[in-house]
Every structure is written in structure tokens, then in C-alpha cells.
């Protein structure tokens, strides 16, 4: 057993927790719980950022930790919860692929992601293979979640979780993105949620449901 320094161990643990939460989301049907898991993922992300900031002494990482905390743990979950209440969607219907199948696919994805992480790790000097691998896994798993769900709400959460993965990847590969980019992304995410919220109301108004298979009737040729 190699002995890593404590902060590296903590960082690895945070990374593993991120992955764990991604899988928990994959296995969860209740949308309310999904939002809570998302908030938790945000919290772990903030903790990891803080850890990294303390370790590297880079000031802007403190800022981005604070931003993460405010946006992903507090604001977005609050918005989403409100949306759920207003739209009255607490449960997703049966997913397209059952949970066991999805998780098995998730396992394969993780292996694939780690294979992918190998060359990236060689490029970036700061990143460990595990961190990059987990970041890629989180992105792909969120993608998987978006594919298998039917309700638009779950897909938005999947989208947000994907952004978490990108953020973690950037952070571990190059100690965070430039502040401008980060702020831009944060703003983007916020706006996206707001726009999508409006969009949901429109969908429900039109189809009286948030189930996305209704959108299939929009295609021209039948």
C-alpha cells in the first residue's frame, strides 16, 4: 500500500464521493431526492475545491469554492425544489432502461473513463489519473442519466450534474478554469435553469404533462 499524503487522500475520497453520488442519482427515481443528491454533490465539490485551494494556495480557488457553495448547494436546489412544487412532478416514471441495467452500463462507463483518463493524465502534470477518470465518469454518467430518463426535470438535473463533472475535471487538471470562464459557466447554468423552467411550463401547458415522449409528436413526417 502506498502512503499518500493526507490531503491527497482526502481529495481522492471527495472524488470517490462524487462518483458515488453520481451512481446514487442513477439509481434514484424520486425527483426530490435527485435534487438533494445534486445539492450534496455540489457540497462535495465545494469541499474538494476548498481542499485544493488550501493545498495550492491559489486564491481564486477559494472564490470558486464559495461560488460553488452558493450556486450549487443553495440557489439551484432551491430553484429546482420550487419548480418541482409548482409543476407537481415528484416522481419520474419508469426509466427507459431499468435501474440495474443502467448501473451495469455505468460500471462499463467508469472503466472506459479511466482508460480515457490515462493519456490526459500524461498531458497535465497536476492531475492524478483517478481525479481525471472520475471527472470523466461523472460527465458520462450524467449523460447516461439524461438518456434513460423520461421526465424533463430529471434531464435538467442530469445536465447540471454533468457540469459538476466538467468543473471537477478542470479543477483537478489545471487548478480550475480562468475566473472569467468560471463565472461565465456559472451564469450560463443559472440562466439555463431559469430558461428551462419557463420551458417546462410551456411544455406542460401544451401537453398537460412533462413526459418527454410527447415531444415525439412534434416531428413532421409520420
Amino acid at each position: 500500500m502506498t502512503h499518500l499524503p493526507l490531503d491527497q487522500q482526502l481529495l481522492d475520497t471527495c472524488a470517490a464521493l462524487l462518483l458515488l453520488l453520481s451512481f446514487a442519482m442513477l439509481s434514484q427515481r424520486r425527483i426530490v431526492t435527485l435534487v438533494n443528491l445534486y445539492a450534496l454533490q455540489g457540497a462535495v465539490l465545494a469541499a474538494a475545491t476548498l481542499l485544493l485551494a488550501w493545498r495550492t494556495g491559489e486564491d481564486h480557488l477559494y472564490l470558486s469554492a464559495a461560488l460553488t457553495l452558493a450556486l450549487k448547494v443553495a440557489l439551484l436546489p432551491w430553484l429546482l425544489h420550487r419548480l418541482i412544487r409548482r409543476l407537481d412532478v415528484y416522481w419520474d416514471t419508469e426509466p427507459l432502461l431499468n435501474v440495474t441495467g443502467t448501473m451495469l452500463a455505468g460500471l462499463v462507463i467508469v472503466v472506459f473513463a479511466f482508460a480515457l483518463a490515462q493519456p490526459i493524465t500524461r498531458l497535465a502534470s497536476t492531475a492524478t489519473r483517478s481525479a481525471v477518470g472520475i471527472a470523466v465518469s461523472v460527465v458520462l454518467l450524467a449523460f447516461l442519466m439524461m438518456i434513460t430518463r423520461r421526465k424533463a426535470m430529471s434531464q435538467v438535473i442530469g445536465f447540471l450534474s454533468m457540469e459538476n463533472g466538467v468543473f471537477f475535471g478542470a479543477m483537478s487538471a489545471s487548478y480550475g478554469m480562468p475566473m472569467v470562464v468560471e463565472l461565465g459557466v456559472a451564469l450560463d447554468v443559472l440562466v439555463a435553469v431559469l430558461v428551462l423552467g419557463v420551458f417546462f411550463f410551456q411544455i406542460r401547458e401544451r401537453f398537460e404533462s412533462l413526459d418527454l415522449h410527447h415531444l415525439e409528436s412534434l416531428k413532421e413526417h409520420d
Partner: protein
Amino acid sequence: MNAVAWLTQGLEAVVALAAAPALLGWVNQCRAWLQNRRAPSLWQPYGTLRKLLHKEVLIAENASPLFRLAPYVTFGAMVLAAGIIPSMGTRLPLVASADAIALVGLFAAARMFMALAAMDVGTAFGTLGARREMMVGFLAEPALLMVILVASLTSSSTALPAITEALVSGHLGLSPSLAFSAVAFILVLLAENARIPVDNPATHLELTMIHEATLLEYSGRHLALMEWAAQLKLFNYVCIGFALFLPWGVAVGRIGPVGLLVAAPALALKLTAAGAGLALIETLSAKMRVMRIPEFLATAFLFAVLGLLVHVLLGA
């Protein structure tokens, strides 16, 4: 040395025997408090056992000797398991002849005897219970074994005490895979001990019951032994959890009976916390449909497998 060692071994099993009903009583008490009910006494399970032991035994006419043997085998397996799990001390003699894989095998043997006994009388509910019990078992058992094997990979030994000692001595540091294992383990614990999202120990509703359905034909001392075995199983599972995730307070190295008792307060403290946590989980969750259970357990199994994956990935 040997006599003392075996005495210590016996003591550990006896403590488990004595404490197991109290753990269940404590969980029930916490649940009642959390649900704004008046709580039964902590000693209620002891009273139930006593009552059952004093009752006449009714056995179905067509029950075979297997039916009468099963409670003793189940109970014996659980007592033995309690001796193997390092709940208070790690260097006990029995441990050398049964590692964690054998422990899971013991649990499987108990389950199999219980299922066979349930099928023995040939009632509709009995076979239903046996089928469901085996359904829970065939997924929960590998999940438990995977959890243990992940820990074995970390400490290069499948003996539970070795795992515990490695964790206590802190050679391993934080192991991220433990997070996955812990989630998997909690899910398995709930399922295996007929706790709420999977089974409801308080009802005999045919649509949902699993564990109780296998015991329907038992009465008197046989039922008492089965109930006691179930309580011991809960105790054992919680102690496995301690051994894998919260090993602090366990007496490491060679100890006598006295050393064992020194470790008892730590165990009591951990059991109190775990019981309260269990009650909280049960209160917060709702019973799920029977055919959702495989999904629940498959999730547990896959979490355990993920733990393995993360261990290999992050360890390499």
C-alpha cells in the same frame, strides 16, 4: 492459553446472545419515539422470548424432522457467527477456522435451513416466504461478500480480525472505496434483517411479508429460537459493519475475558448509535413493493462492485 482463549471466545458469544434482544428493543424504542408513539420497554424482546419458551409447541401433522431441526441449526449458526465477528476482541480461537467467506457461508446455511423448513409444511404462505427469502438472499449474500472482499483486498486477508486490525492500526489511511462499500452494506443490512424498505417486521400482510412468512408455522420454543436467531442476525450484521467501517474500541491483540469486558462499553456506545441510525432510516423510508426488492438489492450489489472497481482504480 487455550482454555482462557476459548473462555474468552465463549464469553463473546454469550455477550452477543444477551445483547441481541436489547438491540432490537432499542431500535423499536427509537422508532416509536421518532414516530410519536409511546415506546415499548427496552426489555420487551426478552419478555417475548420468555413467553414463547414457556408455551406449548404446536407442530403441523406433516412436518418432517427437518422442520424441528431448522430452528436449532439457524440459532447455532448465528451464535457461531457472533463468535467469529470481532465485536470486542480480534484474536479469538474460532476465527482461525472461519474467515469472512465462511461467515457468509454460515449465514447462507442458516437462510437455507430456514427456507427449507418453511417449505416443509407445504402451506401457501410458507413456500411464498421461502421463495422471497431466497430472492432476497441470492442478491444480498453476494453483495455482503463483495463488501467484505473489497475490504480484504485492502488488507490482503479475508479474515475479519485481520481487516479490523489493519483498519485500527491506521496503516491504510482513508480508503475511498469504503464509501461505496458502506452504502452497499447498509442496503444489505436492511434487506437481510427484514427492516423497513424491504420487509416490515411488524405486519403479517401476505402481500408484503417475507421473513415472517417463513416462521408462520413455528410456535413455542421453536419460534423463540427463530426470533432470537433473527435478533442475533441483526446484532451480527451491525457488528460486521463496525468491524469493517468503525473498528475503534475493539481490543486488538491477545486478550483474556477481562480485556474483552473492557471493550464492552465502546461496543455498547456504537450499538446505541447504530440502533438509533437504523430507526431513523426505517422511519424515513417507505416499504417498497416486493418486486422492487431485487432492484434495491441489485443496486446494493452493484455499489459493492463499484467499491471494488474504485479500489482497484484508485489503488493502482
